[in-house]
């Protein structure tokens, strides 16, 4: 029997990005003993890459209110977002942003000393009127500023960190409640069971299922893999956002804030083509709209460069001062990865896989939801999910820029509050069976015993290519059906793949093998859910079903591993205000 070190905490949070750190902070401040587990040092989490900002209707630049923000988010979601959750998020937005400021986040400032805000896509005043200016920014390094501030604050509050520990699987108690997590200490290879009364998944996105992505190498959907292996569902996995402006070739992101500051897109004829697709909002139309327009331009032969495979993002007209003060990080990335100094030259860009709107379904407290036999929601005891790995669902079929960082802190805080309340008011016990750790240990053992077979690397490359070719911006039935077969064949091959390096100390090959199992689970959920949704909505664009079908498809896709798809109704009832009924989306 493998030796496992045991720990006991009030709560264990898996993930030290913005969502996990905000949840941990809430609990530590309330006097609980939370542990945060992260496979990388906290400030190396992907939140650090977020550039443009965090959206909240502060009204620092122009009149604004949370209700307009709510309208934009519902419309942006193409009416697949849950209106109770969206109201909750938008109502709490200003508060959580002020809190971040009080924690020390170095926001850029307006002349009057207030937090600087910039316009972002899909933002309007007065329910669809003029462009709003709603995204709060620390230059173009908002994610960095936010992540470091939250980490610093957790240091101050005394949160315990398990840094460079890879969570392998959730552990269940005798009643099926979640009782903690089994993790590998990467440095030594030792196994740890972190027992807890509340477990929070905050593992971020999984953009690495695609060949071309803005996502960090660590974005491998581990939380989703863990949930699926525990017999829990994931929701709306067909909804993947392709960001309009990834640097061609490198995949590195250029924030929408560039267009917010006045940059725009050009095709090879030097035409500002967004004027044709979105006469009002132009380059600041919603991301799905801009990404599709770009893909059409490129497909119809108006792309730039020798291969006609990208368009150009022009911003030199903003002037060196604005670029240096508001967009210094972008300038650095463009020079490094596109050899173009945006003060002089436009940046070559293509739509690039960016954000997972789907995830583990939760309610507004972050409690994970499964389904009972009748298809009703069932709260999973002891388990929460927050941030990009969760689907609460505030982004529906298309996320608005700046709403993810907001989602992290609003629902990170909400989960922290709920856990605190639960532990204060209920007597929670998680009785463990003898074999509670076995499923997780078996999974590790499979790799340790592998003695021949394919390389993890080869299977991973094939999966990423398949998802890119068969399930990206434009989708059709035939291609996706082939794609599903390919992914299922790859799943089978992965079961027999070979881990050559079986050492214990800092074995990153083992980490990558375990990560690929998670990626593969996410890829399968995504393509199966996408094939089934026979309409176009938000980021999900079907060539064979180009229209939105509100009659049949205002519902969440629910995927359990190894089972036929199920569905769940979208919550059309806000908490206090009138619902926003589906309307045609124009920008």
């Amino acid at each position, binding site marked *: 029997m493998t030796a496992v070190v045991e720990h006991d905490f009030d709560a264990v949070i898996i993930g030290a990005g913005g969502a996990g750190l905000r949840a941990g902070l809430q609990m530590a401040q309330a006097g609980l003993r939370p542990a945060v587990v992260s496979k990388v040092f906290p400030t190396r*989490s992907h939140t*650090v890459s977020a550039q443009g900002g965090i959206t909240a209707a502060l009204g620092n630049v122009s009149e604004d209110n949370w209700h307009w923000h709510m309208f934009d988010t519902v419309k942006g979601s193409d009416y697949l977002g849950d209106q109770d959750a969206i109201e909750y998020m938008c109502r709490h937005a200003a508060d959580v942003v002020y809190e971040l400021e009080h924690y020390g986040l170095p926001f850029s*400032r*307006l002349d009057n000393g207030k937090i600087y805000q910039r316009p972002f896509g899909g933002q309007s005043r007065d329910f669809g009127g003029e462009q709003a200016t709603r995204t709060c920014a620390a230059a173009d390094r908002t994610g960095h500023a936010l992540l470091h501030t939250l980490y610093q604050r957790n240091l101050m509050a005394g949160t315990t960190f398990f840094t460079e520990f890879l969570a392998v699987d959730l552990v269940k108690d005798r009643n099926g409640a979640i009782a903690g997590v089994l993790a590998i200490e990467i440095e030594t290879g030792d196994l740890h069971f972190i027992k807890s009364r509340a477990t929070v998944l905050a593992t971020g996105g999984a953009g690495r299922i695609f060949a071309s992505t803005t996502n960090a*190498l660590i974005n491998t959907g581990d939380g989703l893999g863990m949930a699926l292996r525990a017999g829990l569902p994931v929701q709306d996995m067909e909804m993947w956002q392709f960001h309009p402006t990834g640097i061609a070739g490198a995949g590195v992101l250029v924030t929408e804030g560039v267009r917010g500051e006045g940059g725009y897109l050009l095709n090879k004829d030097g035409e500002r083509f967004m004027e044709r697709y979105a006469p009002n909002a132009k380059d600041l139309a919603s991301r799905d709209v801009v990404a599709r327009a770009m893909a059409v331009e490129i497909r119809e032969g108006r792309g730039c460069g020798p291969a006609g495979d990208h368009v150009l993002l022009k911003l030199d007209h903003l002037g060196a001062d604005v670029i240096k003060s508001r967009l210094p990080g972008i300038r650095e990335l463009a020079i490094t990865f596109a050899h173009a100094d945006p003060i002089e030259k436009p940046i070559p860009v293509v739509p690039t896989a960016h954000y997972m709107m789907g995830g583990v379904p939760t309610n507004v407290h972050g409690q994970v939801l499964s389904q009972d036999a009748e298809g009703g929601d069932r709260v999973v005891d002891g388990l929460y999910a927050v941030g990009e790995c969760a689907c609460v669902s505030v982004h529906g079929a298309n996320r608005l820029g700046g709403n993810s960082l907001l989602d992290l802190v609003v629902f990170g805080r909400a989960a922290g509050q709920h856990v605190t309340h639960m532990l204060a008011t209920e007597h929670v016990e998680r009785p463990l069976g003898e074999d509670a750790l076995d499923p997780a240990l078996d999974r590790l053992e499979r790799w340790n015993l592998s003695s021949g077979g394919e*390389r993890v690397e080869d299977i991973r490359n094939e999966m990423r290519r398949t998802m890119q070719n068969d399930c990206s911006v434009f989708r059709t039935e035939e291609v996706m059906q082939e794609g599903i077969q390919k992914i299922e064949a790859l799943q089978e091959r992965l079961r027999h793949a070979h881990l*050559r*390096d079986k050492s214990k100390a800092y074995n990153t090959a083992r980490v990558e093998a375990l990560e690929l199992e998670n990626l593969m689970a996410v890829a399968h959920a995504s393509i199966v859910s996408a094939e089934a949704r026979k309409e176009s909505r938000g980021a999900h664009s079907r060539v064979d079903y180009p229209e939105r079908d509100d009659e049949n498809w205002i519902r969440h896709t629910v995927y359990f591993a190894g089972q036929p798809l199920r569905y769940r109704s979208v919550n059309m009832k806000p908490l206090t205000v009138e619902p926003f009924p589906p309307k045609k989306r124009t920008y």
Partner: protein
Amino acid sequence: MRFSIYRYDPEQDQAPRMQDYHLDVEAGDMMLLDALMLLKAEDESLTFRRSCREGVCGSDGMNINGVNGLACVTPMSSLREPVVLRPLPGLPVIRDLVVDMSQFYKQYEKARPYLINETPAPRTERLQSPEDREKLDGLYECILCGCCSTSCPSFWWNPDKFMGPAALLQAYRFIVDSRDQATEERLADLQDAYSVFRCHGIMNCVAVCPKGLNPTQAIAQIKTLMLRKSA
């Protein structure tokens, strides 16, 4: 492309060794990290950290042809061959290019890197003028990669006492933040002979910082404030 890479596996190797590698591809636009990932596909045991692959997370600091830098933003075309890769100097090696950063993080924590302001927070934001905010530029962007501190001779000799450029940069970031009220305590914390005064202005730290930050200047400012206080 030819490489000579520092290898050390605590379970197998008595002592570290250098291993030659060869890659048969055009450098093109490739970054060093891309090349390392191709090498790892061949030799799974080759070990290094990485996350963002765009120079913002600070994971892949290493010593590249004798100079500390981030693999992900170092173009292959800029490197003389064979490319000699070693772990960041002066810290214990865990495996291959992975070093134990605990000492570095401890010094960072010693700087009390969080805003201290005891007055009750207002309902909205605390105001800060753009001029005051500008004082944080060149400080808050640090990605804790460790390239600076591990190129600093004073840090090598006294990693437990001399805070090193990265931690001091953070100390100064909070000292100059107009919203922070603990300036006096912060300066007092740094009064001992080692924390600050072991910096001899050698500027190695400035030369290697991949974010173009200037720890030496921040250290000089701290010294000035301390002198002013004691005068």
